[in-house]
């Protein structure tokens, strides 16, 4: 039962969603529409689970005085402040939750992502050594796109922005299309394996 029941639920819900796409009539339509909303509700419970797990990890770190435990209260307080202000004051504009988001979460998120500029640049410096002609091609393509994005590119040669547009619309589109079509085939086959219970690693363990 521990295995049959979850696999049956996967099969039934998966088949309803597939049928919902091809048969837009009752009762499949009603079942499919409701299931899409149920899916979002249960998936949002996974966010709760993640938050609870985060709190559990940090309380445990404090309790056992593990490495860097002194920073764990910061995470707990940060979570609690956002959670409580969101619950009490709501999420509308010009409320405390909005203030915290706009002045703390959003700046930290952009700073974190902008930090990646430094790491990506240093990684590129090491990885993109023109060791063979294909690596040189990759390096040249990246360099042209980067130059084409900024005014100095056009100042060096007015055709660089055009070359950037061509690279993005022709070879990049071709490559991305090949990747997307390949990935879509992978998604279809993996989804079928999951719906029919062949792929069951998501249930954990090997039973």
């Amino acid at each position: 039962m521990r295995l049959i029941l979850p696999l049956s639920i996967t099969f039934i819900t998966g088949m309803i969603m597939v049928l919902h796409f091809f048969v837009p009539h009752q009762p499949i339509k009603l079942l499919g529409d409701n299931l899409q909303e149920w899916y979002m509700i249960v998936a949002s419970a996974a966010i709760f689970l993640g938050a609870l797990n985060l709190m559990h990890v940090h309380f445990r770190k404090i309790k056992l005085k593990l490495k860097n435990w002194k920073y764990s209260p910061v995470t707990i307080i940060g979570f609690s402040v956002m959670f409580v202000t969101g619950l009490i004051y709501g999420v509308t504009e010009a409320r405390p939750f909005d203030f915290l988001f706009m002045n703390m979460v959003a700046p930290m998120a952009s700073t974190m992502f902008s930090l990646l500029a430094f790491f990506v640049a240093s990684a590129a410096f090491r990885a993109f050594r023109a060791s063979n002609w294909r690596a040189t091609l990759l390096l040249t393509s990246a360099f042209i796109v980067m130059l084409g994005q900024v005014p100095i590119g056009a100042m060096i040669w007015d055709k660089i922005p055009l070359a950037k547009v061509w690279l993005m619309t022709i070879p990049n589109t071709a490559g991305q299309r090949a990747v997307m079509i390949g990935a879509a085939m992978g998604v279809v086959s993996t989804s079928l394996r999951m719906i029919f219970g062949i792929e069951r690693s998501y249930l954990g363990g090997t039973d």
Partner: protein
Amino acid sequence: MNWEILGIWLGAMLTLCLYSFLYRDNPFYKFAEHLFVGMSAGYWVIYSIENVLKPNWWQQMFPEDGGFNWIWIIPGIFALFMLARIIPKIAGLSRMALGMIIGAGAGVNMVGFFQTNAMAQVKGTIISVSSGGAWDIISNIILVVGVITGLVYFFFSKAHTGIVGKTANVGITILMVAFGASFGYTIMARISLLIGRCQFLIFDWIPTIPRLLGIGG
């Protein structure tokens, strides 16, 4: 207290704390990093309450015109099953919720991805290579050949030898140009975020310092 200045200072201090990592790992960075993790988690929990649970579950179960839709108890039970994972004795119940998410997700994605990522891309590639000027013809040929050879490269059921190997080699070349272009574009997106943060510090934060010290306007 001026809330606008407080907000600017909070943002600036946290930005500087995070950028201090460029020197090396330090307590200021660790503080901001832990705060970011906690606040982000809190934000997403509230986001899912306000944007998913309230409109898609609570208001469906208890409609504004009164009454009670019992059918909406079912997703609530599945959601509780998901949370059961934190209690070891009943953690097995979370498999039901996982089964439902995986099944519905697989069903939606299977047809969705096939339609948008496979069929739409194939349709977009079926173009007239002979239309337009010479440059357009060359570009269209590169596009079509690039997609086909790229797909051959990703086809691993046949050994990449002979004609298949040669076609796959053309595919790798196109993919390298594509990855290079994507990489360059990603770096520039990150650089624009960096410029945004620097502009915030220079044009928003620094002008508040004389105001706080009572110097100038």
